[in-house]
């Protein structure tokens, strides 16, 4: 999978402590968010984004539709699954700056072809 390594150091004027860090970002997010870390980091730059952060742009019900499975496997929909319904925070399976496996893989051998680690 392609990921861009972009150095945010120069643009993060005031945040001296972060200045030497390179941060991974999804290419498609780069186009929308650019270099404004605060777009997602609503709890402060050094904190994880809140569970609502991704939902500024993404709609849970749309995601549910996109990942729907056949009637027999309907509860294997990661965005509306048997164990947690639609309430599973995005960050449990998706990481902007680091690779993550879907939570389901703790116990199941399902394949989610479109999931990008």
């Amino acid at each position, binding site marked *: 999978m392609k990921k861009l390594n972009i150095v945010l150091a120069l643009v993060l004027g005031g945040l001296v402590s972060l200045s030497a860090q390179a941060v991974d970002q999804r290419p498609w997010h780069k186009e929308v968010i650019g270099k404004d870390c605060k777009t997602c980091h609503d709890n402060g730059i050094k904190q994880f984004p809140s569970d609502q952060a991704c939902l500024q742009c993404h709609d849970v019900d749309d995601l549910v539709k996109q990942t729907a499975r056949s009637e027999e496997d309907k509860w294997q929909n990661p965005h509306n699954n048997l164990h947690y319904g639609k*309430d599973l*925070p995005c*960050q449990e399976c998706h990481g902007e700056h680091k690779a993550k496996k879907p939570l389901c893989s*703790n116990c199941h*051998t399902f394949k989610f072809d479109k999931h990008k680690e």
Partner: protein
Amino acid sequence: MSNIDLLGRRNFIKGLGAAAGVAMASPAMAVSEKADGVKWDKEVEVLIIGSGFAGLAAAIEATRKGAKDVHIFEKMAYFGGNSAINGGLFAAPGTPMQKKEGVQDSVDRMVADQLKSGRGIADEALLRHVASHAVEALQLTMDAGAEFHPYLQQLGGHSVARTYQTSVSCGAGITQPLYKECKRIGVNTHNRSKFEGFLVGDKGEVVGVKMRQNYHFGEDQPGKVLNIRAKRGVIMATGGFAQNVDLRMAQDPTLTSEVGCTNAPGATGEGMYEMFRLGAIPVHLAHIQSGPWASPDEGGFGYVSNYSIYNFPHSMAVNRLTGKRFMNEIADRKTRADAELACRDEKGNALPPILITSYKDSKKHPNTKKVIKYNVGWKFDTIEELAKHFDVPLKPLKAQIEEYNSYVKSGEDKQFGKNMTKAKDKFIEAPFTVVRLWPKVHYCQGGVQVNTKAEVKDSFTGKPIPGLYAAGEVCGGIHGVSRLGSCSIPECMVMGMTAARSVMKA
């Protein structure tokens, strides 16, 4: 309250560390301390920690008993703990389905079965309390919208069929309705909130807790700690510690990280250990149970576990080295897990045994299709194919099947004394379905001691610690050496409800 100065001792240890130049790798965890002069960040009426069966049942019952401001705090990002991934098997004596199916059962009979598998050290008073209220707890789940398969199951160690199972064959068939019910009746739920210690009043009573906010499990990101006052009391429903390899190995050194685990990642036990620090009595910590129905071909509980729990009564478990049976397929868990662990090749390496079932019988369970589809189980048209795939000696295997089928016919298992009632007319015939078996760490019988009011007892005074209640797997001693399958849901639900009733009376 204990008269040992734990805080002093801790500071001493910290001092040693500093002197030796040891760096603290993880963020310092807050611990219990006196509430004198603390600044309260928040005040709630009933404070519940943990969002599994016990916590959710407690929240609903407290609200029904008149509480206006109930809060559940959960350290993980998602709610439900082990309960949300559980098998959805719920035992209760004297249920409507038992009446319909003509099963003779009673509180006494269920308690007797549990005492037997507890091997003499189970807590009879608690077992009786739970069994007496189990039907009520089952009703609470139905009132909230839980649905169950229209048949009963007889699990290992139970003398009759008394187990309901949710129609989705998973505990989520209960936690999801309970969680929605909590939302509907106005219970406040907080995820990413980690309990880190108690705040204790002058008389040793629990008056509040320290709660880390915006906590991200397994990440190096500390969040902020709030002091929260609990007006009526604190209910600890934090579950077991099966995922904490250090703690489980401290109790049973054979449970290394190489032994799998069926539990949710949050089952790490710090809530229980913090209660010990406060003076709670530890019971039966070394009794940690492994599930004999798990598969080495998938993680956690997966699909195979429920598949095999359903199929064991009419299946044959076979040692691949000999082609012969090696256990009573419906003995209690410890008996079977020990027998499976003894299945090894000539060099002593693990050789997971196989469970052979006739496809015609296995396919009645909804998981069978999935087990085959996700490659964690296999279907064979002939015994030759099966034997080749698992490298089992064919002749002895054929002989064993013939012998076993004679027991199906006569109703008497001369090899292992298995109760053949549920195997009636279910001969082992092609086509077959097969899964591999290997135990996984599953349930912690040990925990803090509670009484039938869900009050936590203090080891020094012998009296309940005021303001502190506990329910569910975090409690110990109830089941003794080995817990029977499907007996945790009733325990968690009943004790959660009991804790709520006690809090509202206190």
